[in-house]
């Protein structure tokens, strides 16, 4: 009896068809049709995802194999989808938030010519398709196909307005940094194949198979996979592409660099949780890097003046939190934060897009201000997003962030303190952003003021939906100490992480301690929010940064460091290879062969002299050679 979840192939099929239709028909379709096809395919996927979720909730998990992808000797890699609790949560997030962003894009990108409009939606659909492959794949290779695909679409979409060179450079930077991580991922896959002969999750994660791996094997594989994740999910040291990626259209930033692609690393580690739980060293490394990234990005966001750059660094920081959660063994908390972050970060990015649209393309918050009078819906939804990300109780961000911090405390109080400090910074810079943009007086030009208006329904609709989700999304994860047995998400995901919990042991704090921690963090966050609100409403930061602020505004000069240490030497080396080895050596050899052929043909031509005498001579010589050969070789 075939499992009904075999139909799961429909989920990535619709976006793939959308990509093909919009891509091939980009010159002939009308804009409304393109929008309908693009958004409709994701809506169809969303509906199928809901159906899959209901199936899984009723206990029906399944690995659907479709065909043999690679079959070489003993190695067999099937093209298969694994539908279980973890993948269906991600499916809902990707298709749900993706659909809202597609609808938003129909209005945001409506100024484009229809050919570019179609190209945009084709790329977006291709991205959703790749991301779905990534989360649905039943083995590391299918995941890697999706992994590469989202990297490609990120490149295509960041450089969407390809006529501007700096956007192309940003796209290149994103792709190359992704690639560095991908190399580590590939080596990890090869290592797995060498040791276990398989890459399918169901086989790799079996305890019997894990016993074949030595500790150094597991440490090496998990470390390499994590390096792949640092590239994709923008952690130290491969994070500098994400702020530059803001060159792409705002819905792209919302979808790819907030809600989905950057969470691929989290998904991958959550999926391989049993491997990571067996490697405490790598878990420590993940926690430290996650925490460091969260802190670093938060400090940089304090002094950014571009509305999208603040949100970009905020994303890097929140991703750091997710990795901190993974590193401390709180896998459910990490997935929970992925979900809530998708809601409020997409909301914040889409809200910023609405603001940028109203300001006629202006992105500098120093030139904004007082927008709450002109854009009521955007104002309220953006405020809800800020409250959620700050972690104020009652909103979604509070529940997920609290769980992460509690897990961090369980590992080490130092983690908790740094995490709490970063949370305060988060609240501070987010409300700095909000107050500077929406409160106070309008600081732009007169023309811009006339242009200010609330955005159309296609933009405000998704904002409202995401705002509602940012509020209620946290209630599926109410922690133990508040209400017994109310953590629906943990219960739902428990089959996926059961193996890890047995290896790692419980990471529970006493209920009193948790109330205390929550209380401390909430009070401190509220104080920070009020302080930031008051300070920046009255006196927004308008000038250039000075002193230590300058270091923060210049991103701790990390980009310049990379440039000096890595990029410039590589360019010089490539230049050397080009001028010396390419020009002299290789061209010399190739041209030399040509010249040799030319020369020998010239010499051979002289043989045809037309002199009968020389022909006879050659005949005689030939006969002589045959005679000699016969005489001496017959023996």
């Amino acid at each position, binding site marked *: 009896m075939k499992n009904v979840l075999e139909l799961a192939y429909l989920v990535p099929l619709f976006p793939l068809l959308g990509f093909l239709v919009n891509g091939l028909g980009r010159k002939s379709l009308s804009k409304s049709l393109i929008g309908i096809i693009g958004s409709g395919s994701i809506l169809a996927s969303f509906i199928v995802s809901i159906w899959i979720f209901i199936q899984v909730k009723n206990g029906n998990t399944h690995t659907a194999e479709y065909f043999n992808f690679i079959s070489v000797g003993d190695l067999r890699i099937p093209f298969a989808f694994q539908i279980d609790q973890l993948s269906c949560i991600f499916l809902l997030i990707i298709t749900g938030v993706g659909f809202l962003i597609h609808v938003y894009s129909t209005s945001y990108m409506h100024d484009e010519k229809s050919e570019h409009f179609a190209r945009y939606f084709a790329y977006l659909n291709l991205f959703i398709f790749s991301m779905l492959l990534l989360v649905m794949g039943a083995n590391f290779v299918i995941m890697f196909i999706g992994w590469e695909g989202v990297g490609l679409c990120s490149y295509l979409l960041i450089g969407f307005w390809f006529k501007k060179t700096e956007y192309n450079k940003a796209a290149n930077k994103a792709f190359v940094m992704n690639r560095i991580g991908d190399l580590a991922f590939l080596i990890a896959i090869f290592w797995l194949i060498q040791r276990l002969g398989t890459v399918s999750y169901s086989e790799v994660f079996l305890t019997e198979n894990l016993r074949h791996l030595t500790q150094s094997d597991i440490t090496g594989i998990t470390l390499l996979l994590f390096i792949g994740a640092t590239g994709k999910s923008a952690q130290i040291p491969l994070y500098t592409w994400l702020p530059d990626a803001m060159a792409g259209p705002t819905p792209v930033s919302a979808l790819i660099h907030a809600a989905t692609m950057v969470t691929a690393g989290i998904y991958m580690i959550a999926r391989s949780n049993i491997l990571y739980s067996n490697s405490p060293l790598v878990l420590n490394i993940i926690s430290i890097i996650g925490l460091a990234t969260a802190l670093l990005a938060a400090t940089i966001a304090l002094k950014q003046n571009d509305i999208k750059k603040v949100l970009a660094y905020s994303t890097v920081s929140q991703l750091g939190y997710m990795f901190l959660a993974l590193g401390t063994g709180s896998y459910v908390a990490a997935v929970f934060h992925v979900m809530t972050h998708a809601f409020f970060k997409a909301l914040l990015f889409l809200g910023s897009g609405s603001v940028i649209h109203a300001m006629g393309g202006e992105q500098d918050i120093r030139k904004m201000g007082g927008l709450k009078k002109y854009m009521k819906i955007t104002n309220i939804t953006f405020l809800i997003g800020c409250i959620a990300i700050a972690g104020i109780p009652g909103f979604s961000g509070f529940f997920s962030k609290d769980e992460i911090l509690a897990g961090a405390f369980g590992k080490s109080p130092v983690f908790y303190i740094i995490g709490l400090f970063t949370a305060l910074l988060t609240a501070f810079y987010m409300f700095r952003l909000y107050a500077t943009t929406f409160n106070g007086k309008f600081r732009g030009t007169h023309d811009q003021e006339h242009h200010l208006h609330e955005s159309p329904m296609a933009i405000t609709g998704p904002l409202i939906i995401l705002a509602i989700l940012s509020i209620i999304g946290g209630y599926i994860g109410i922690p133990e100490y508040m209400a017994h047995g109310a953590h629906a998400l943990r219960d739902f995901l428990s089959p996926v992480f059961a193996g890890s919990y047995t290896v790692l042991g419980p990471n529970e704090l006493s209920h009193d301690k948790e109330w205390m921690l929550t209380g401390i963090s909430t009070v401190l966050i509220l104080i920070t929010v009020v302080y930031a609100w008051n300070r920046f409403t009255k006196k927004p930061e308008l000038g250039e940064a000075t002193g230590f602020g300058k270091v923060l505004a210049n991103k701790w000069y990390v980009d310049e460091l990379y440039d000096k240490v890595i990029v410039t030497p590589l360019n010089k080396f490539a230049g050397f290879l080009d001028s010396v080895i390419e020009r002299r050596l290789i061209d010399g050899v190739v041209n030399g062969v040509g010249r040799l052929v030319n020369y020998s043909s010239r010499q051979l031509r002289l043989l*045809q*002299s*037309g002199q009968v005498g020389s022909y006879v001579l050659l005949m005689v010589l030939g006969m002589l050679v045959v005679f000699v050969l016969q005489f001496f070789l017959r023996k």
Partner: protein
Amino acid sequence: MPINYYIFLSIALFCIGIVGVLTRRNAIIIFMCIELMLNAVNLLFVAFSKMHHLKMATVNASAGTEGQLFVFFIMVVAAAEVSVGLAIIVMMYRNIHSVDVNFLNRLKH
């Protein structure tokens, strides 16, 4: 007489013939050298035929006649070839009024 002497003589005549074909410019002299080569071979055939006869005479009285028979064939071919060749030389002379073979380089084109 030992067969070697006949062989050496034949080889010498043959080589003189070849050198003559390769180096002489006059077409008629070249022809004479070709005839010289053919006759050298004839000599060799006859010498071997006698050698065979001397070896086999006790078994078969008419052994070794094949060599002498083939000499007749060669002579017939030589005669035919001379007639054709001389005709070609006559045509050559009619065209370029010389029998110098260095003028024959039309194959170049």
